[in-house]
């Protein structure tokens, strides 16, 4: 391997790692800076509330997503009932509903004179329905919103773990005379534990990073604390200090998830002894229970928010015409295509570098560079602004150059850089998993057939990775379309996406107006999910 190529890999991996490390280092450095007195006041009063609320929210969401995710995964993986094949993929459609849109729907449906009231009035005429309609606001509403939008993480991972459980394992339980419940409790669940923990860790990270829904329900958590410290008190250093605590939280989750993933390897190892499992056909009341459970979950997680947005769009068509859909679509496409290009370019470069050079240091740099996905968007955006301001003040201006703040803050370039940090792991891991399926002997065979490294890359790797690349582009698109805090904080003036438009309308108490962009967001996201469902739900025999 010639030296020049190795240097290119090191350099690119090094640059990627540095870009990802900047927000983390910025957060840490905030401890050495002065903040306003507000920090002292907050430390005495609200800070504990931030932590208490964050923990309550986390526990509530983890409990509900565990029940919903594992329950639904168990039913569709082990049993055959009418609609089982439909629910298999229908349950992942909840990914199309960001928690903040779910929150708008939940609130609006049950509020005084809301949709529930309208339905009751339509069905039964005028009446005092408001006092009988439960109100889903505050912490409970927030937990529900997050759980219904995030349970699919647990569902997908638990389901794939259940699917990969060999029939041998189930037969072993029968052979030992276990009842169905004991088999589930003693064999199936422990074998799937690492996958479930991994799913719950993802849910936890998303919950701690959630901004839109938390802000909508006016619950003070660490995330909204960070945003408010920046927007209301203009105190970046304080925002970064709260970020530090949140990062500590997330770091622990990150470790848990990584450890459980490593263990998952052993649990899922079925090489040579895998026997495809036959599903058990449900009859009578059991079958009805399974249908009701899955239908209810599908309805609550997807149909309900979609219908609410659709209802408002139809009811207030003027909002549709007030909005420049084409502009929003073009902005979204612009961000998606630019970010995808940059992400895929670097992720391919780094993966290829790891593959051909097989150096430990490159592996370490790669691991470091994917840590961005664990950092909430709010932290990334604010840390990025802090870093640019610091760099501008201490280097650019002092050297007599014009300020570079405008180049990076409130610009598409800044947005793409922070998206890069946040979503690099998606691109890197997507391509990596594609590469992992291709034995290194394949590359070596190509060299021995006279292919140069470049020709091997373009003629062998790229055609082989085609599907993985497509999958990565779709995943990135899905994330960017739904992304709120980074876009909200770093977008150029007058540059809106469906997510920011919905958020701005909702924060101005114009939920009906938020419905149109939210509906478009859901529809586009659904389209992308349907495109990826084949990969997400991949089964062993497919």
């Amino acid at each position, binding site marked *: 391997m010639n030296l020049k190529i190795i240097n290119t890999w090191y350099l690119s991996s090094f640059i990627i790692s540095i870009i990802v490390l900047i927000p983390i280092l910025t957060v840490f450095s905030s401890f050495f800076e002065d903040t306003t007195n507000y920090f002292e006041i907050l430390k005495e009063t609200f800070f504990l509330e931030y932590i208490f609320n964050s923990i309550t929210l986390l526990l509530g969401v983890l409990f509900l997503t565990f029940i919903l995710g594992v329950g639904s995964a168990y039913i569709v993986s082990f049993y055959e009932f009418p609609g089982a094949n439909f629910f298999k993929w229908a349950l992942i459609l909840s990914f199309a509903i960001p928690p903040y849109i779910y929150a708008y729907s939940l609130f609006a449906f049950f509020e005084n004179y809301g949709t529930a009231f309208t339905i009751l009035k339509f069905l039964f005429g005028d009446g005092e329905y408001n006092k009988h309609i439960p109100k889903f606001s505050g912490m409970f509403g927030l937990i529900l919103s997050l759980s219904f939008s995030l349970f699919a993480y647990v569902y997908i991972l638990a389901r794939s773990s259940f699917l990969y459980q060999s029939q041998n394992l189930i037969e072993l339980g029968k052979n030992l005379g276990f009842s169905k419940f004991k088999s589930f409790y003693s064999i199936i669940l422990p074998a799937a534990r690492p996958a479930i923990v991994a799913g719950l860790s993802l849910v936890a990270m998303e919950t701690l990073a959630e901004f839109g829904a938390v802000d909508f329900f006016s619950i003070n958590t660490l995330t909204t604390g960070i945003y408010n410290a920046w927007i209301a008190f203009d105190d970046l250093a304080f925002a970064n200090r709260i970020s530090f605590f949140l990062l500590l939280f997330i770091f622990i989750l990150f470790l848990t998830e990584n450890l459980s993933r490593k263990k998952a390897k052993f649990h899922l190892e079925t090489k040579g002894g895998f026997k495809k499992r036959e599903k058990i056909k449900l009859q009578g009341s059991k079958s009805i229970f399974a249908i009701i459970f899955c239908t209810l979950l599908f309805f609550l997680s997807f149909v309900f928010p979609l219908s609410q947005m659709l209802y408002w769009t139809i009811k207030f068509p003027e909002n549709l015409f007030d909005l420049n859909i084409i502009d929003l679509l073009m902005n979204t496409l612009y961000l998606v295509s630019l970010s995808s290009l940059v992400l895929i370019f670097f992720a391919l470069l780094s993966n290829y570098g790891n593959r051909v050079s097989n150096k430990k240091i490159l592996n370490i740099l790669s691991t470091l560079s994917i840590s961005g996905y664990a950092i909430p968007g709010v932290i990334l955006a604010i840390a990025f602004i802090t870093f640019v301001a610091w760099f501008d003040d201490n280097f650019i201006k002092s050297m007599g150059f014009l300020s570079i703040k405008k180049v990076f803050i409130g610009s598409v370039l800044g947005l793409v850089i922070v998206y890069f940090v946040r979503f690099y792991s998606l691109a890197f891991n997507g391509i990596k998993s594609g590469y992992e399926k291709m034995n290194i*002997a394949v590359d070596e065979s190509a*060299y*021995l057939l006279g292919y140069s490294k470049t020709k091997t890359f373009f003629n062998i790797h790229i055609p082989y990775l085609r599907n993985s690349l497509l999958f990565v582009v779709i995943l990135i698109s899905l994330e960017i379309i739904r992304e709120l805090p980074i876009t909200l904080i770093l977008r150029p003036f007058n540059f809106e996406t469906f997510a920011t438009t919905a958020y701005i309308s909702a924060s101005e108490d114009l939920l009906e107006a938020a419905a149109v962009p939210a509906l478009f967001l859901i529809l586009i996201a659904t389209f992308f999910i349907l495109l990826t469902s084949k990969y997400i739900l991949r089964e062993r025999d497919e």
Partner: protein
Amino acid sequence: MNNNFFEVKNVDFNVGGKIKVRNVSFSIEKEGDIICLLGPSGIGKTTILRTIAGLENLKSGSIELNGKILSSEKVRVEPEDRNISLAFQENSLFPHYTVEKNILLGAERNKDKKDKKISFKEIIELLNISPILKKYPHQISAGESQRASLARSLIVQPDLLLLDEPLSNVDQSFKEEIQVSLKKILNKLKISTIIVTHDSYEAFYLGSKCGIILNEELKQFDDPYKVYHFPNSIEVVNFLNRGVLIPAEVTSPKSLENEDLGTITGNFINPFPIGSKVKLLIQPEDLQHDDKSNLQLEVVDRKFRGTSFIYTLKTLSNLLIPVFVHSHHIHQHEIEEKFGIKRPIHIDHIVCF
């Protein structure tokens, strides 16, 4: 002046800086010869092939092909410029192409070659690949994948072909047939080949020379007959596992004496002074069965090998000795029965250590 077609000179074969086999030298005298490297798993046989192919670096010694240095401390020809084919033990087919396309990619390399000795059709017929041509690598068995990989390597018509356990995944019933086809193709194409295997029968059949790699060294490199009958060290004897070593004393230039078997005559491969205490190699075909003999030993085990039985006999001093008997022999002996050994014992070539 060195006239060998291929030569490995004093090479330390290493992976990632860790030496696997030290100070190795061997050669292929003329184009078209086949050599086999035998050794237990993990000993470094694959490393040798990978280094010859240019996939691993070399820190000392040199590798030459057709008078041209491919690897040395200073020279390194890239794998793609060597015209050496390596058929990997594991699946190395391009996963997104059909078997047919995989093989045709190999053919692309020699499309400008005027002297094409074998066609695509001939190769797929010889290796019986036709039924899987349209399939993708993930749709075929490990054995089929090895044959397809072999076909791709062969169609290149390389200057040197390297085969890493080429038939390890092929079904036993099919293995012999493929071995015959492979030998036929290699001889027809006159492709110099190095085959790595742990199957000594395969090595003895395919190779005109065999190398035995043990304990980080190339212990012996010789004709298969000599490797089998004249192993040059106790390690080679133990590796081939085709005989036992029993204590004996040299009594004359053509005889020795064992406490249980008595006098044994024959020709010493290596001379020993009279009176030397040695370890004598007894291979299954060295002793002959004779029911009427007065040397009767107890049968402790009997292995049926199709064409033969290998009896394991226990001597008075508890030595266990293997004896070959044709399976059509008039009668069989059960365990714990007595088994006669023909006397006087004469072994054509006496191997002692």
